[in-house]
């Protein structure tokens, strides 16, 4: 515990190894981590939290590299958490997001951490969130969270970010309808990357037309749609400007309240699952549901100690 405080102090003072080891403690849910949370959040310096998500192969890593280059030109210190899936069979993972970032490896004002999702239910969102808080305490601004946009947990991470950038490619074509309800709904900014390919502008026009009429964004205006070519850097400065402009929106009273609501919901779910999992009757109760003697909702109430 005192160790963790020492790591936090070091991280906040700019020691990179201390920050790295604090991130490991967060990933591993090390003993004493819960007690550190008030200090961790209090140490935040208000860095802009930006989520970058989208389907695999859309050029997210290359775009993150290009964004980092542009932010460095503007004198910003950039923190990055890149999340990759763990194998559900072996628990192992290959994380390759660094391949495109090695040009920044020795830059003391860029800090990148690869995190495997480790497949624990809801756990990745919690750990990602705390990792971002650690980078914030260390003074990085902006802080990017890069995820593979393939499922619910990514939508959740996107909800927790202040500004969510969804990266698509020109060829998405007919998939647009399918993804409409998921990723596009959480986008604060939509990027059509690989803008040098034929059809990029057409894809951007289709998205614009679709989102101006799409539901699911009650009370929110449609997101700006930008075209980038991450490999050449084209459009990246404009994207950096747009992300910066959205920071103001993200810090309006209503947006702050909405995001805090998601954070508390997330923490509640996490706490409830942890507490229920320690219940001595967990196995028996789960078996009752399997045997169809009990419905899942009543089972959950019992595991939380509410008599039903």
């Amino acid at each position, binding site marked *: 515990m005192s160790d963790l405080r020492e790591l936090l102090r070091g991280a906040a003072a700019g020691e*990179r*190894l201390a920050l*790295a*080891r604090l*991130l*490991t403690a967060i*990933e*591993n849910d*090390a*003993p004493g981590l819960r007690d550190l949370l008030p200090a961790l959040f209090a140490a935040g310096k208000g860095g802009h939290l930006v989520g970058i998500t989208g389907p695999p192969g859309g050029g997210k890593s290359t775009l993150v590299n290009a964004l980092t280059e542009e932010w460095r030109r503007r004198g910003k210190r950039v923190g990055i958490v890149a999340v990759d899936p*763990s*194998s559900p069979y*072996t*628990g*192992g*993972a*290959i*994380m*390759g997001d*660094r*391949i495109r970032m*090695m040009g920044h*490896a*020795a830059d003391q004002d860029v*800090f*990148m*951490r*690869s995190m*495997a999702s*480790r497949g624990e239910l809801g756990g990745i969102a919690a750990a990602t969130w705390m990792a971002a808080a650690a980078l914030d305490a260390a003074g990085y601004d902006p802080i990017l969270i890069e995820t593979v946009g393939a499922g619910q947990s990514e939508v959740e991470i996107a909800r927790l970010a202040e500004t969510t950038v969804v990266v698509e490619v020109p060829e998405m074509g007919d998939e647009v309808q399918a993804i409409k309800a998921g990723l596009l709904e959480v986008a604060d900014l939509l990027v059509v990357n690989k803008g040098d390919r034929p059809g990029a502008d057409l894809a951007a026009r289709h998205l614009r037309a679709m989102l101006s009429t799409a539901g699911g964004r009650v009370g929110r205006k449609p997101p700006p749609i930008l075209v980038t070519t991450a490999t050449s850097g084209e459009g990246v400065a404009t994207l950096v400007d747009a992300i910066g402009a959205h920071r103001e929106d993200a810090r309006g009273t209503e947006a702050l309240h909405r995001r805090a609501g998601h954070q508390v919901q997330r923490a509640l779910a996490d706490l409830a699952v942890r507490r229920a999992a320690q219940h001595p009757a967990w196995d028996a109760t789960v078996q009752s549901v399997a045997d169809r003697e009990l419905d899942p909702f009543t089972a959950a109430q019992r595991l939380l100690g509410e008599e039903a």
Partner: protein
Amino acid sequence: MDDSRSTPIRVLIAKPGLDGHDRGAKVLARGLRDEGFEVIYTGLRQTPEMIVDAAEQEDVDVIGMSILSGAHMALLPRVVELSRERGMDDVLIAAGGIIPDADVAKLKAAGIAEVFGPGTSIGQIAGYFREHARRRG
């Protein structure tokens, strides 16, 4: 998997120097993933500084370097040296590739924990990492 370890071992796989052949490194990365390791693959043509900077940020338990170019005596001890300078004393540093027997002893004296030559199985490497990587709470 070792019972005393509840979290996956994190391994950085790097290609120091200028040779452009990373088939072996990629096969190893995938093999270690299948053995339950979390592998951070950094790609080709890395300097010792880049490798150590990445290893520091990723807080890995193991640095594994594949090298075929013959520049191992110039590059590998430098990675050990930089790691120690940064306070990463407990990181296991190993190498593989084409390295003459005469150099293996010198590399070990310089702090490279083990050198895996051609024909080593992934299971052997995984076993070695499990046995020698630092333990975490």
